[in-house]
């Protein structure tokens, strides 16, 4: 099959010594930053994005891949060893993983997470390589109207999946859309929402918003609550390796996790929480040792971690083939692509296949590196985690401001960092999800472009938007995504009141 050949070519690119070095740096940096509490993969990629700008597109994409996987692995290390995980997808890992660590089985927990991520990541990347050309072929029949419908679907799934209420998710999304409006309108050169500030003409940097909302918001949040919450770090006692029993219990959850994670990640289903949650429930259902769940069952770490990693690879499917980001991390990666003037989508596969397949191959490489580098380096990452909170958060904010300064050192950008940081704190306090803001920021301008393109083709006739069955199906799914959670929670409320 041609895609395997292209993958082979990509591997040759990825295996060049300089690119290998980038992969190593990416994985190490990604894990180091991802390990920091409160910093999930989305933020890790956002923070390290400016670092990659100095490299050529191929090298920086490869570093990307390393940072992406490294960030996820770092995040799961934190959720196993520390009882306050950095991002929602890790909550499930924390459930069983932390219990295992407390029982002195931290080593096997970390090992199963790492190996499971590797297995799932490899399978998922393979699936990505095989599935992408088909989707690209399908996507070539998409016109602007269909793309707009697809983006609307992404909007609704992102808003509805995150956070505790659809209303809050959509509100966050609209805040993101407003931020996306700032800057020069590409089609008419008109400045919008710049209030005469020249720095705003280029728009608001994704890095600034992501770093401010995630890192600064989190730090402010923790600082305001520090007296109430003490974090306990579990030392990695005992063996670092998994016993034969552990292996026996882990390998099927790995495969099942990958099977659950990849398709869900590939659909605009908004995030890694659903597949990890599903994997956990699946493993609990299938386990002959149900009573262990909640007290440190290794399947509860193996499955969800595999699902997490597989769904991360899965989100690359719509990102690379359609240019559609379905999670905050993907949105930030899209921003990275745009910095190079690369627009992911079917055309990118056609015009720069070397680049895309090089990226996919480097995902394989990054995966292997992760395993090779991180299992021995566990001790180092644990040391990072055991740094006392004051220094830890001081370091986190240092890196956070580094990221923004690296992207754009103007005072306006830094003031925005501060303002959005405060917004991030407020959002956390009042339970508004943060990820839809990032997605709205990135996807808003893109969707506007598609909308206007579609309408200029149809001479301002709005019926083009629902002109093809693809668009209709997508809009129907979008409505379902919005109404689904509302209907489900209303049903639950009714049952709760009825006392069932």
């Amino acid at each position, binding site marked *: 099959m041609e895609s395997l050949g292209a993958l082979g070519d990509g591997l040759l690119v990825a295996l060049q010594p300089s690119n290998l070095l980038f992969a190593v*740096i990416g994985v190490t940096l990604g894990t180091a930053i991802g390990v920091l509490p409160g910093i999930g993969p989305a933020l890790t990629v956002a923070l390290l994005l400016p670092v990659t*700008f*100095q490299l050529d597109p191929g090298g920086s994409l490869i570093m990307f891949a390393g940072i992406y996987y490294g960030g996820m692995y770092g995040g799961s290390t934190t959720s196993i060893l520390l009882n306050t995980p950095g991002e929602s997808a890790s909550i499930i890992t924390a459930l069983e993983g932390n219990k295992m660590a407390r029982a002195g089985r931290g080593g096997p927990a970390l090992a199963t997470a790492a190996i499971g991520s590797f297995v799932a990541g490899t399978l998922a990347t393979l699936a990505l390589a095989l599935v992408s050309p088909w989707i690209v072929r399908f996507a070539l029949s998409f016109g602007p109207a269909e793309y707009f419908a697809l983006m609307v679907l992404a909007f609704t799934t992102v808003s509805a999946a995150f956070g*505790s*209420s659809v*209303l809050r998710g959509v*509100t966050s999304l*609209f805040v993101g*859309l*407003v931020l996306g*409006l700032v800057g020069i*309108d590409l*089609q*008419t050169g*008109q400045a*919008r*929402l710049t209030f005469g500030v020249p720095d705003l003409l280029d728009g608001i940097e994704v890095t600034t918003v992501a770093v401010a909302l995630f890192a*600064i918001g989190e*730090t402010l949040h923790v*600082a*305001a*609550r*520090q007296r*109430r919450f003490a974090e306990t770090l579990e030392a990695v006692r005992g063996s670092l390796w998994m016993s034969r029993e552990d292996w026996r219990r882990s390998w099927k959850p790995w495969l099942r996790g990958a099977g659950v994670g990849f398709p869900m990640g590939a659909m605009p289903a908004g995030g890694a929480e659903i597949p990890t949650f599903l994997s956990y429930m699946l493993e609990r259902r299938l386990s002959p040792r149900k009573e262990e769940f909640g007290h440190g069952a290794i399947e509860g770490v193996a499955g969800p971690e595999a699902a997490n990693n597989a769904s991360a690879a899965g989100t690359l499917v719509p990102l690379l083939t359609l240019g559609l980001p379905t999670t905050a991390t993907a949105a930030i990666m899209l921003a990275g692509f745009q910095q190079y003037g690369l627009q992911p989508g079917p055309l990118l596969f056609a015009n720069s296949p070397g680049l895309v397949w090089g990226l996919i191959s480097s995902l394989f490489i990054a995966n292997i590196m992760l395993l090779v580098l991180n299992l021995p380096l566990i001790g180092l990452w644990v040391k990072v985690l055991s740094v*006392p909170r*004051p220094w830890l*958060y*001081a*370091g986190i*904010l*240092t890196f956070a*401001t*580094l990221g923004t*300064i*690296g992207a754009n*050192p103007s*005072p306006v950008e*830094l*003031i925005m*960092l*501060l303002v959005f*940081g405060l917004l991030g704190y407020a959002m956390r*306090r*009042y*339970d508004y999800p943060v990820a839809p803001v990032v997605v709205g920021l990135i996807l*808003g301008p893109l969707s*506007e472009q598609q*909308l*206007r393109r579609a*309408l*200029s083709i149809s001479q*301002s006739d709005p019926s083009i938007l629902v002109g093809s069955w693809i668009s209709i199906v997508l809009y129907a799914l979008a409505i379902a995504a919005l109404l689904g*959670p*509302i209907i489900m*929670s*209303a049903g*639950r*409320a009714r049952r*709760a*009141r009825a006392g069932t």
Partner: protein
Amino acid sequence: MTDAADAQGGRRPDRASLVIALALIVLALVVAWDAATMRTGAATYSRIGPRAFPYGVSAGLTILAALTTIRAFRFAAPRLPRDEARPALWIVGGLLTQIALLPYAGFSLATGSVFAATAYAFGRGPLWLTYPIGVAFALAVWLFFARALSLILPAGPLERLF
């Protein structure tokens, strides 16, 4: 999901939600005003010009503000724990100091203030000790990113020594 959890109607409206609804309306008005006062120089080709999306977003925000207000009256406010303001203010102060120092003092000296202020916010001082530590840390980071990885970072008097 808290949709089901906070399903008891509260007699007193949720003040935080009302404030948020107000903020959303203000935002909607700002976006709409900015779109309305746009000077469109050249004639736009289609009816959907640079104003369409802002108006759409503004309309959406207004609807969301209305829904948030309804929610504020229908559901009881969740009992939120009391947060301390002091640590947050210190961190904000550190960031402001960094903004002020950056153009003149370069990356390390400016970022050192963020480091020291954050450490102080979490209870570690004294500032005269944590600031130099912060500067040293920031300098090490600068050396790594600016030299090894060629990231462009503002260099001040301290960085020029290296």
